């Protein structure tokens, strides 16, 4: 079952509902504010980079949208519905270090996890599911590593396995936390290509991104963030030296943080 991405679902609508609409989102960790009253409407499709200095609340933003950390206030809606009701449309690729790399799972096992929601509770994996897991691995150039234990793969290959797992979810909206951090050139090339294919099939890809120099090459939209929204829009319009300085320069949050 490898249906094309359901791109007609939104583009045929009369009034386009944003794939992701965030209103007034505030995230706090034990009294410290990680993200302050963040409001943003995502573009309908494309590749969006979220950039900002360390501790700017980039990961917190993704995690709050996904419900992995509690929201102090605000809402996040996916195609006009709460996230909890739209999980089928959403895929998440976490930062690398967050799992047990010794876990008894092969690359194919991990990719198959992307199909679990589709398979449903209590039901085992079918042969067809295993076959499609291998297809997604092939899409990230790892078909010959399908039976390798995930800890035995290189960092970049591990990152591609997690990307393949997200692809298996056949989502409309992809959230990735620093997918390019510390990966090799091959992986970078594969990921860039996969992102473009996703965009061309009508999906929206939102990635936290560290490397300012490659924003223009890879992404077409940008969100500049430093605990609050500094600027957002198409890269050409929003990714200006002025906005970058406002994001990374004198901490704007000094007056809002207290």
């Amino acid at each position: 079952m490898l249906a094309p991405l359901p791109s007609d679902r939104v583009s045929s609508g009369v009034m386009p509902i944003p794939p992701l609409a965030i209103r007034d989102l505030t995230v706090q960790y034990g009294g410290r504010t990680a993200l302050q009253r963040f409001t943003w409407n995502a573009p309908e499709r494309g590749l969006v980079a979220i950039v900002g200095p360390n501790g700017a609340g980039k990961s917190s933003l993704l995690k709050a949208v996904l419900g992995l950390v509690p929201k102090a206030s605000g809402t996040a809606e996916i195609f006009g519905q709460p996230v909890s009701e739209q999980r089928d449309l959403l895929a998440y690729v976490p930062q690398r270090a967050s799992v047990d790399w010794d876990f008894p799972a092969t690359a194919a096992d991990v990719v198959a996890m992307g199909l679990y929601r589709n398979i449903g509770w209590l039901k085992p994996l079918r042969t067809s599911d295993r076959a499609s897991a291998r297809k997604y691995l092939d899409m990230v150039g790892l078909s010959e590593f399908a039976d390798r234990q995930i800890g035995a793969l290189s960092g970049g290959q591990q990152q591609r396995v997690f990307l393949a797992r997200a692809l298996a979810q056949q989502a409309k909206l992809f959230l990735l936390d620093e997918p390019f951090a510390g990966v090799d050139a091959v992986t970078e090339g594969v990921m860039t290509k996969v992102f473009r294919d996703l965009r061309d099939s009508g999906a929206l890809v939102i990635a936290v991104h560290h490397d300012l120099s490659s924003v223009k090459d890879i992404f077409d939209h940008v969100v500049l963030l430093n605990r609050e929204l500094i600027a957002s829009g198409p890269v050409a319009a929003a990714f200006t030296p002025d906005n970058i300085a406002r994001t990374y320069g004198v901490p704007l949050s000094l007056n809002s943080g207290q």
Partner: protein
Amino acid sequence: MTSFLQIDLPAMLTGTLAALVCALIGNFLVLTRQSMLGDAMGHVVLPGIVIAFVLAGTTATWVMLAGAFAAALFSAMLVEFLRRIAGVEPSAALGSVFTAMFALGVLLLEQSGVARTSFDVHHILFGNIETAIWPAAAGLRSLFDTAALASLPPQLGRLAFGLAVVALVIVLLFKELRVVSFDPDFARTIGISPRMIGALIVALAALAAVISLSSVGVILLVAMMVCPPATARMLTDDLKTQVLLSLLFALASGVFGYAIAVLLPLAFGYEISFGAAGTIAVVAGLFQLAAMLFGPKRGIPRTV
């Protein structure tokens, strides 16, 4: 043959079934870094079992289960209170509660006069699978005689029931258990609650602990929850294979352990016999040692 059926078979079955049920759920304790949970569980349910026995005056399965679950629940609440409300460091909260509960159980055993009648601190600590006997057995025919089978020791039924429940849940929810153990954050994003599956793992461990405790003792319980899964962990990178291998090692520990403890000394004409539960646990530990030394999947040495 008759004496084997009357004495050795029921004891061997008791030890082996307990080993199987504990090893099965133990896989997920080991993978989620909760190996000491089995130990804590084995300790906290003791006062519950004793109180339930004193109140109800019987060792019927449901009485033991109710008492043990009440004690486990009470302990969990106490730990949560110490951690969240009082602010005690988590491992200190767990450690102080499980030692206090076990101490309470020991005192209740001594004070209520239950000791030396139905169970005994030694049986809880050491295990006492030798008391599982099948006096109705008279030759191989008894294995097919429903009347004789009905008089099998009650803990066998209890253990078989527990094994069936744990196995059924693990088979049905295998992929959910796998994804939650591997990547709880991801599980949450696809709508599988790590908290719910985590609670299920703890509940199954509690069930395994309760049914094993009174028949095989706390030490065999801990050994079986950890050693066979850890052994299997050294041999494979596939979760399903790991679970099946752990069952194989549990089975082998049960059978060989009992044979070494009881049958071997008899065969050589010695009067001595080793405690069967302890020997089964030692055999399981030796399997693990061998796998750690020679297994193909020892893993990359971690530098400190």
